[in-house]
């Protein structure tokens, strides 16, 4: 019940439906009562009119009364019978029930309509004094009159009883239909990609919610702008760091070329490594900023094998230093539709990661698997792998697995993710050895180029 109350106060749709239904209910009830009462009165008045007409007819025709003596007339119904008698005959009444005439009306009754109880039954009675001076009684049993009046009153209620549920259904349906654009709109916004900040289509929306949508669009534009500004700041900052970094590394390089004592030389080495690491971090930051920006990049048909080759040429020295057996499995090549630089940076970051997190004497494999519409590129290593809980986290910038002493920038997989999001590629992480749960296997699903 609380849930319904909350629904009622929160949802315009529910509130509208309930309020409209209640209004219809109240109006229908009032109208029903009114119709019932007026129909009842109408019926009574008509029956009184009948009594009056009979009296008028009696006087105009100068009729005289004789009381039937027990003879039954076909089609006669004792209950609905109209009784006409002289008021003066009432004293001659013999029977104690209402089946025999004359009936024992009190002779003191005044002219006009009244309801009186005779022998345990209610009678509607009209007393009239004719021009001849006779007082006549026209009477009818009240029960049958009431029954007929009630029946006709109930009949007048029937349209309301049919209309009420129909109206409820119509109102419910109408409200639901009117609110459908809003439901569609919220679904559209809900299903959006997190990077999708393009404005919502304002056409085909009711004018009532259009200002709201316009406001949302303005908000989206502002968010896009600030995200853009943030990225530009990172790119600019990294850019500005380039020159001082160059100065630093060149100076350190010169220093290492000079004559110096062995301990000094030993201390210089970590310094140079630190500078190298910073240089790499700046490069990765710039790569990430580039991967996240400008979605309109020229696409071309790119040979995966060719990209593998360029990546291996770049990273072979790194692999050799750790004596890692790196290579391509299978000889099949495939053409994919993507910007060549994007694919190169994507694969390079994956292979770079694989080499970094694979122990000395390990193994890294690059493979291509073909599906009818797509190509799956895989980079498998013999490192420790990434646990299922960590698999979502590793795409966050600067995230680094615990227990690794690798000096990576922590941006590699973020760059991969950014490129994948922009190009519509799918990334999946799994184990290279699913039984032992070791080794990272990154699968990249790309759309194949049409031959």
């Amino acid at each position, binding site marked *: 019940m609380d849930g319904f109350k909350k629904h009622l106060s929160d949802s315009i749709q529910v509130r509208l439906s309930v309020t409209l239904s209640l209004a219809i209910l109240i109006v229908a009830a009032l109208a029903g009562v009114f119709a019932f009462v007026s129909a009842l009165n109408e019926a009574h008045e008509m029956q009184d009119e009948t009594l009056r007409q009979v009296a008028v007819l009696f006087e105009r025709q100068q009729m005289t009364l004789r009381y039937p003596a027990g003879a039954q007339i076909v089609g006669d119904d004792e209950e609905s019978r109209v009784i006409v008698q002289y008021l003066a005959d009432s004293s001659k009444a013999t029977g104690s029930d209402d089946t025999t005439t004359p009936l024992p009306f009190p002779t003191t009754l005044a002219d006009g309509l009244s309801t009186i109880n005779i022998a345990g039954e209610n009678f509607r009675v009209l007393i009239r004094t004719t021009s001849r001076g006779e007082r006549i009684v026209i009477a009818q049993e009240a029960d049958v009159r009431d029954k007929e009046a009630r029946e006709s009153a109930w009949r007048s209620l029937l349209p309301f009883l049919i209309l009420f549920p129909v109206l409820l259904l119509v109102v419910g349906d109408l409200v639901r239909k009117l609110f459908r654009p809003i439901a569609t709109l919220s679904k559209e916004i809900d299903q959006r990609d997190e990077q999708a900040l393009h404005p919502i289509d304002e056409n085909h929306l009711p004018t009532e919610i259009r200002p709201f949508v316009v406001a949302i669009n303005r908000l989206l534009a502002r968010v896009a702008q600030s995200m853009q500004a943030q990225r530009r700041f990172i790119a600019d900052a990294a850019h500005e760091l380039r020159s001082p970094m160059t*100065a630093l590394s*060149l100076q350190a*390089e010169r220093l290492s070329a000079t004559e110096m004592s062995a301990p000094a030389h030993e201390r210089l080495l970590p310094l140079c490594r630190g500078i190298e690491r910073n240089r790499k971090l700046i490069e990765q930051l*710039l790569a990430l900023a580039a991967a996240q920006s400008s979605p309109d990049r020229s696409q071309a048909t790119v040979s995966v094998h060719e990209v593998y080759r360029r990546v291996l040429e770049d990273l072979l020295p790194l692999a*050799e230093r750790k004596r890692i*057996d790196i*290579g391509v499995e299978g000889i099949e090549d495939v053409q994919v539709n993507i910007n060549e630089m994007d694919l190169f940076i994507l694969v390079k970051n994956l292979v770079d990661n694989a080499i970094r997190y694979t122990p000395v004497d390990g193994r890294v494999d690059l493979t291509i698997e073909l599906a009818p519409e797509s190509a799956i590129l895989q980079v498998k290593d013999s490192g420790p792998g990434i646990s299922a809980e960590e698999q979502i986290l590793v795409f966050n910038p600067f995230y680094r697995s615990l227990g690794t002493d690798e000096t990576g920038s922590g941006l590699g997989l973020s760059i991969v993710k950014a490129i994948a999001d922009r190009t519509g590629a799918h990334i999946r992480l799994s184990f290279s050895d699913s039984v032992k749960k070791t080794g990272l296997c990154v699968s990249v699903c790309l759309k194949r180029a049409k031959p």
Partner: protein
Amino acid sequence: MRILLVEDDPMIGDAIQGALNDASYATDWVNNGLTALVALQAHAYDLVLLDLGLPGKDGLDVLDVIRGRNNPVPLLIITARDGLDDRLRGLDGGADDFLLKPFAMAELLARMRAVLRRKGGSAQSLLDNGVVSLDLVSKQATTADTPDVQLSSREFALLQALLIRPGAILSRSELEDRIYGWGNEVESNAVEFLIHALRRKLGSHVIKNVRGMGWMVSKST
């Protein structure tokens, strides 16, 4: 050799000038584009190192003026600008190479040598990657352990193909193309056979195999 260094960052300029002097290049260092143009009119330089983000006159404008004067001096751009547009404008504008900051001094020196060699038009008679050197005239290969090993013409062709771009991986079919002329029947396993022979003569570390890809000689460091 006389080098003109155009660089406005004092720390970088100082470091490059020092390193160039250490490498026996005579270096004049100016820190803006206008002075650079004056210096180029006053002296004949063997090579210009040009930064793009210069005060007063932008590096690309300096380049336009130099080439506008029909000065063919070898020119190498060193810059922090990584935009493709800048790179294309630089190379289209007549720069001989484009080096992105941050870089290692060794790389700058290697690029300078390459530019000077290209511009000098001197045909190389020796290919070298620091591990093995190949004399293109005598077809002799030399490593630290094995001096002056005579190679067969196919062994020579294969090693030459690899040494033209050290660090590049060449596939079997690419090597076959280099070794065999048109119309020559390619023997199966010929590439493996030749590489085996070369390794026996020069040591197995000279030619590296990249699984699933092909072969390469390591890049000079």
